[in-house]
């Protein structure tokens, strides 16, 4: 059975996340009215560079715990939402999916918000890094300093999710 939260080299499929959510709903499955999904793709350009491919690396056990934490935060903020989140690592070519998220709830508004919140939080606190290989070189991309206890970052993710 597909887990709700996962990180690994396998190609991502939204259908598997939706099925995992369906399976985990149990007897409550009929109460849900919405599944919102997000698929993040490898783009062929980034700040003026022509990107050839990306390599993702993770501290996998901590990444899974970060996903669990994001799930718990979502449960706190939107108690009727359930989350599935898979992140891929290794070499990814242009157009391939690096992250797949599905949020399921009785009504669409909370599913939309929670899905957006999840991707913003992954970018803030998941110990995952991408190395960009572009025409002329390569470099590690460095974004946010990961601090799960930073309440300002969390509030910012929530603000974006509810905008």
């Amino acid at each position, binding site marked *: 059975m597909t887990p709700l939260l996962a990180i690994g080299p396998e190609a991502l499929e939204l259908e598997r996340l939706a099925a995992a959510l369906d399976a985990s709903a149990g007897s409550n499955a009929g109460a849900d009215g919405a599944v919102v999904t997000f698929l993040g793709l490898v783009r062929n350009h980034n700040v003026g560079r022509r990107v050839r491919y990306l390599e993702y690396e993770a501290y996998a056990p901590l990444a899974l715990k970060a996903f669990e934490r994001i799930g718990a935060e979502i449960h706190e903020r939107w108690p009727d939402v359930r989350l599935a989140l898979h*992140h891929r690592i290794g070499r990814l070519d242009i157009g391939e999916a*690096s992250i797949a998220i599905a949020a399921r709830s009785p009504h669409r508004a909370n599913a939309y918000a929670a899905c957006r919140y999840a*991707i913003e939080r*992954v*970018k803030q606190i998941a110990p*995952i*890094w991408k190395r960009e290989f572009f025409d002329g070189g390569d470099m590690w991309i*460095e974004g946010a*300093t*990961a601090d799960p206890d930073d309440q300002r970052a969390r509030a910012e993710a929530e603000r974006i999710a509810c905008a």
Partner: protein
Amino acid sequence: MRVTVRLFARLRDITGASELARDLAPGATIGTVWRQLAGEFPALADYERSISSAVNADYARMDHVLHDGDEVAFLPPVSGG
């Protein structure tokens, strides 16, 4: 006591190792390990204010006291998604 140090992304490139073993005196913290490594690899100094750290795959602060067998990880700013 002896700890394992895990290094990721550019920190791994700078040190040339994804994993190192370090012997420490009792009472040593994550910060002790970081300062020791920064002494060995001066390019790490750029990360003084932007790294995160973890012990045994849980986020932990620099003042966290280490024990024999712990796995310490240093994480440069993240870029998942």
